[in-house]
């Protein structure tokens, strides 16, 4: 086995040594609690991401050439476990999860050099501009156009629900370079400078009262042709690039997070003397079951990848499980608190700064964002179970 050098790794480091090294790093550099003010928080998060990167602890799955750690899969799992345990902030924007794999797979060498490391370091925040007011689940009907003019595209249209849009420096967007009728065959993948003339990003207030996402207006925005990833009209395939194994490695992270949230909820129920209520206990035990299954699923997906190179069927359903779990959990917490559960954080009577109510509202998005529950169920039915396509839907 080739010896891995650099990034402070010794040649014969064991899993346990690796774990210890991560723990020591997290302990030494832990950023503490995030500031509440959104602008301050952005600066604070960026500083943390830079620290991670500069010490060689960013991008567990990423190639070393782009500043990542290029860890074998089993080590990625350890990385995510420790990350979750340390309670340090995760990546900023949607670039790392969605754009980066696309760039790594399809980007030119020059594009990779230019974009990847700054994204990983948190210097540049990337946001995803796919959805449009008229194109959500039916993304192939999108209407934002990019017309070729010399070595530039001129982009016009509107994007919506863009997460982190307000703090974005770059938008990775799907745009129409072909005819409307060509649907997904006429779509290209463009990387748009969010500070370019003609880009207007307006925060959208979401139902939590916050600003999770924004709408983006594009008015004669000029984008170099060199900033297109992949072929013209070949963007659809790129948008389907999945994280697959990386996401599987990170699935432990989610299980750990919800283990913690549930323990906190149980604690709250105990403090309020609600554990004597058989119904409360039954519901808490049901969440206990689901949060454990979340971990078992993650273990199984990881073991499947390690043994067989494939994640198996559990991976296709674990997101559905988590979405339903987090919605049910927060709603139950609100119910359990009764009228006090309805108080916002402005009220002195609010319990735990209203986190459960905020969670109840926030997790409504779990079954909408990145593909609605209905669309996911369709996909699982067709792609995993092999059920026939709906003939009233356009061909894929």
């Amino acid at each position: 086995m080739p010896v891995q050098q650099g990034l402070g790794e010794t040649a014969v480091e064991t899993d346990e040594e690796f774990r210890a090294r991560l723990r020591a790093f997290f302990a030494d550099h832990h950023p503490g609690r995030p500031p509440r003010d959104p602008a301050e928080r952005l600066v604070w998060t960026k500083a943390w991401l830079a620290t991670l990167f500069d010490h060689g602890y960013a991008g567990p799955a990423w190639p070393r050439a782009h500043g990542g750690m290029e860890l074998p899969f089993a080590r990625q799992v350890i990385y995510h476990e420790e990350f979750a345990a340390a309670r340090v902030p995760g990546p900023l924007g949607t670039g790392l999860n969605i754009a980066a794999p696309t760039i790594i797979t399809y980007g030119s060498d020059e594009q990779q050099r230019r974009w990847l490391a700054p994204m990983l370091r948190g210097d540049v925040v990337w946001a995803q501009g796919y959805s449009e007011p008229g194109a959500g689940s039916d993304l192939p009907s999108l209407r934002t156009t990019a017309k070729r003019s010399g070595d530039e595209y001129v982009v016009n249209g509107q994007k919506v629900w863009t997460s982190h849009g307000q703090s974005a420096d770059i938008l990775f967007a799907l745009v129409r370079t072909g005819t409307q009728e060509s649907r997904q065959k006429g779509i290209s993948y463009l990387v748009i400078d969010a500070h370019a003339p003609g880009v207007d990003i307006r925060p959208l207030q979401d139902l939590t009262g916050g600003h999770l996402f924004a709408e983006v207006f594009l008015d004669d925005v000029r984008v170099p042709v060199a900033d297109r990833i992949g072929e013209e009209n070949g963007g659809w395939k790129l948008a389907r690039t999945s994280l697959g194994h990386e996401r599987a490695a990170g699935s432990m992270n989610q299980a750990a997070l919800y283990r913690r949230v549930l323990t906190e909820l149980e604690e709250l129920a105990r403090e309020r003397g609600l554990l004597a209520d058989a119904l409360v206990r039954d519901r808490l035990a049901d969440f206990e079951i689901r949060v454990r299954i979340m971990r078992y699923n993650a273990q199984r997906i990881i073991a499947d990848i390690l043994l067989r190179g494939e994640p198996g069927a559990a991976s296709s359903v674990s997101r559905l499980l988590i979405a339903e779990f987090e919605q049910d959990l927060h709603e139950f917490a609100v119910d359990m608190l009764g009228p006090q559960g309805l108080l916002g954080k402005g009220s002195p009577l609010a319990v735990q700064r209203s986190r459960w109510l905020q969670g109840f509202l926030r997790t409504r998005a779990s079954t909408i964002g990145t593909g609605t529950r209905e669309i996911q169920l369709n996909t699982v039915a067709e792609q995993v179970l092999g059920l026939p396509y709906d003939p009233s839907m356009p061909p894929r």
Partner: protein
Amino acid sequence: MSASPSEEQEQLRRLVHDFLQDRSPVADARRLAESGADGDRAVWTQMAEQLRLQALVVPEEHGGDGYGPAELGIVLEQMGGVLLVSPYFATVAMAAQTLIASGDETAMRRWLPGIADGATTATLALAEDSGAWDAGLVRTQARSSGDAWLLTGSKSFVVHGHTADLVLVVARTPDGVGVFAVEADAPGLTRAPMDVLDPTRPLATVQLDETPATRVGTGDASGWLASVTDLVLAASAAEQVGGAAACLAMAVDYAKVREQFGRPIGSFQAIKHKCSTMLLQVECGRSAAYAAGAAVATPGPEASTAAAVAKAYCSQAFTHVAKECLQIHGGVGFTWEHDAHLYLRRAKSSELLFGSPASHRARLAELVGI
């Protein structure tokens, strides 16, 4: 075991799968259930002689192959898939695991070789008239008389209890709860099948009237009986996953071929969403059952927790999936001739045997300190 089957375990799975599909498909479960037989002798013998399935968890020194609950789970998942009518679950998952957990060398030497080679069928009788799987509620009395013990009382819901060659009876003694071996020809033993929902899994009443018995293990057995319960729960969960997976496969196959409104019903979202949700439950159940299979190999709190999680989840999943399978089959699903109701019967029966999901949630809450 790891969270996912090893190559060797995969081979075991394929072996058992192919054997059962060939020798005991679900049509045979129907035939046997309708005839009231408690299994197919020839299949039983082949399972023992060719596949050595009865020997699976029996330690090598007692004529077995020394595998653990994880492998047993793999076998039971396949058996659950075809609703195998057989005293296998009772003999291996219940009785053999009880004898092993007792640590009683004499008892093991006496009965395990017969179980391993298929000569002996056996079961564990714990529940009484209430059906509760709770050693604390046992009222059957054991009285010592010289070297022997005499049992008096009645047991109910005894899995394959009317035919088992050996019945392990949980009874109350002056020094706590004990486990006693009663052979089929013991005087004062009367047994009868109960009239129950699931004909593929016969349950019996067992009456004991001053019936001579041999004590298995010494002292109060409630401690190690708790670990037996965990083993039985994990085994039951694995079997339920197999049943649920079979229902899902049946539903999906039908949804691909049954046409209404000029297209396969599986192209309609209402059906697709049902099937995907069934898959969610089957896969989550499988993760839970595998985790339990691994955890119960070592007795302790983690074993109990994992077993309770798996039993509670898999029970609900199997019943839900069986109901949806029936629904997806429409009118044909409601007919006696269709297999859907056989699975529904097995599902509901497995759900309530060894403790309902709600009772396991309550136990889990205790275990994790909620």
